[in-house]
């Protein structure tokens, strides 16, 4: 943080990936596009034949699709958390990572939004969940949590996109003015919308940016709370729980932070940004992960305790027998170890700053969080009230291809992002640099 390069160098370096493409980019891009093709194939097959090609059944009518949906949307939350939350809390260090985090949010949401539509029996009628004056004068039923999801996800996606774009405008302008060829100059010029960086524009820009940050913040809280209501408004033991909204939000930010770290580490290496994305950043992120992990532990404990305390035999069965000892016990224990155990290494600074450890723990947490959603959904459904209707769920190759494919789609989008969009908020970096140059203490102030 102490020694930042000059504005010119900064600009040049941060825009470099836009002008000359490294070979490894093509390699990765090739791989991920192939994965994306797999996704397209699996999805088309599903739509053509019917979702019977998945492993879902009665009782387990929801499985992979909804798990993926909740997981992806959760990952999105870290982006907003970092860019909006930390902005309002005046955490300057976020400057070098918020753009990446926001991009991640948007791509995660693109993935998330796909699943609720895809999992419908008749996906071509998905728009029936949206209120519109139909000729039959029929409307969505707003007592159900699903139209709430529609509202939440729409709002979340739109706001994130606007917020992201607003932040990009000045950097697009830099790209426009630094563009080597006329074509690129025009392209970035269009996205820059004629930004001139005049004092007046800057003043309005800062107000608007703050406002959007202020608006995005309640979304971090509300969206995943609403997603959690899909489950907690039901009667199903394992779903019917009041702890869900905060519990889901924590899990969401948790998994999101893990994803940010997973993206930052290779990016930092690839574009040698060690001086911009510093140990301090990782240290902070790791601390956050640790906190989230502990809060999650609390949720796990409370959930089980409450099920026991309630005295309800169905609740007790799900939390104290079905999950830890039932057909999905392995998944349950992996989840517990990865989500609660793994982050404990971050008590030590050594591990907080070791990119290898960070990366591994983050991967573990991502897996753990996916399993958490899977456990919540499937183990609650597969053994509910009437013992006669118990039945296990086994995924098919289509389920697995769609999950793998959605990861590929995500990385494809992200690769395109680092290739065509300034991956760091250049102007913010300049502000940061300026503040440090005038008073080096600002740095500490920001760090604190």
């Amino acid at each position, binding site marked *: 943080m102490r020694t930042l390069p*000059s*504005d*010119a160098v900064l*600009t040049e370096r941060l825009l470099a990936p836009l002008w000359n493409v490294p070979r490894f980019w093509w390699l990765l891009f090739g791989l991920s596009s192939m994965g994306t093709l797999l996704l397209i194939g699996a999805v088309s097959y599903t739509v053509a034949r019917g979702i019977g090609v998945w492993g879902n059944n009665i009782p387990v009518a929801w499985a992979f699709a909804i798990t993926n949906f909740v997981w992806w949307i959760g990952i999105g939350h870290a982006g907003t958390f970092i860019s909006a939350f930390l902005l309002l809390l005046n955490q300057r260090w976020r400057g070098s990572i918020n753009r990446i985090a926001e991009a991640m949010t948007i791509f995660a949401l693109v993935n998330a939004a796909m699943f609720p539509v895809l999992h419908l029996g008749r996906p071509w009628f998905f728009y029936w969940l949206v*209120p519109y004056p139909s000729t039959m*004068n*029929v*409307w*969505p*039923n*707003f*007592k159900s949590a699903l*139209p*709430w999801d529609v*509202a*939440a996800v*729409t*709002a979340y996606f*739109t*706001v994130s996109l*606007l*917020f992201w*774009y607003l932040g990009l405008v*000045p950097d697009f*302008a*830099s790209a426009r*003015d*630094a563009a080597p060829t006329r074509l690129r100059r025009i392209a970035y*010029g269009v996205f820059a*919308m*004629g*930004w*001139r*960086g*005049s*004092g*007046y*524009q*800057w*003043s*309005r*820009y*800062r*107000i*608007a940016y703050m*406002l*959007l940050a202020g*608006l*995005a913040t*309640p*979304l971090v809280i*509300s969206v995943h709370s*609403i997603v959690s*209501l899909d489950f907690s408004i039901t009667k199903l033991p394992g779903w019917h729980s009041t702890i869900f909204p905060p519990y889901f939000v924590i899990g969401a930010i948790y998994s999101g932070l893990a994803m940010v770290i997973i993206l930052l580490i290779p990016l930092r290496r690839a574009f040698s940004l060690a001086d911009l994305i510093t140990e301090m950043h990782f240290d902070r992120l790791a601390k956050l992960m640790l906190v989230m992990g502990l809060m999650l532990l609390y949720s796990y404990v409370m959930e089980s305790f409450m099920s026991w305390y309630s005295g309800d035999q169905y609740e007790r069965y799900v939390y104290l027998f079905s999950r830890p000892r039932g057909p999905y016990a392995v998944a349950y224990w992996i989840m517990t170890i990865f989500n609660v155990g793994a982050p404990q290494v971050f008590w030590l600074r050594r591990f907080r700053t070791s990119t290898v450890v960070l990366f591994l723990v983050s991967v573990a947490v991502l897996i753990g969080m996916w399993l958490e959603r899977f456990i919540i959904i499937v183990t609650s459904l597969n053994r509910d009230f009437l013992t006669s209707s118990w039945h296990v769920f086994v995924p098919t190759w289509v389920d697995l291809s769609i999950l793998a494919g959605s990861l590929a789609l995500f990385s494809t989008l992200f690769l395109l992002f680092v290739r065509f969009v300034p991956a760091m908020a*250049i*102007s*913010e970096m*300049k502000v940061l640099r*300026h503040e440090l140059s*005038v008073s080096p203490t600002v740095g500490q102030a920001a760090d604190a």
Partner: protein
Amino acid sequence: MRDLDWSRGSYLAEFSTADELSEAVRRFLEMGYTRVETFSPMPVDTIVPRTRSRLPVVVFAAGVAGAILSYAVEWYANAFAYVQNIGGRPAHAVPAFLVPALEGAILFAAVAAFAGFFTSARLPKLWHPVFEIPGFEGATVDRYWIAVDGADARTSTNTTEDELRLLKPLRVVLPGPVT
């Protein structure tokens, strides 16, 4: 003030640091200039007087509107236009209806903030006279510009240039592009 009126061009000077720019602005305002504007790759705190932004008010109004509209739609759909007996629950379910109302509020407010910014900032505007100045690209990279409006009462062809030169800018452009 929003933007200079470029009808008679402007006197521009280029600096390499934000501090020089702030200093320049201060000096010129002291000298009695009123129509002064800056161009910089990052927000620079200058004492150029600005009108208070109405954006917060607009955004708040939009939020309220969004909430009311969402709730109204829900009420119309479930409690008025097409009432169904849904599991014996009341048709007008306040707690349920509040949830999408909240999201509606945020959505409307956010869109308003976004649109509000571009309208007040007079964007998109792909061409602007200043872009005609050779080397003005620096303004989004690492150069800091001050512009004094030719139409400013205080501006005069024989003094303003020298006053700019006194600030030891990298260079002076005058009079800037005329619309």
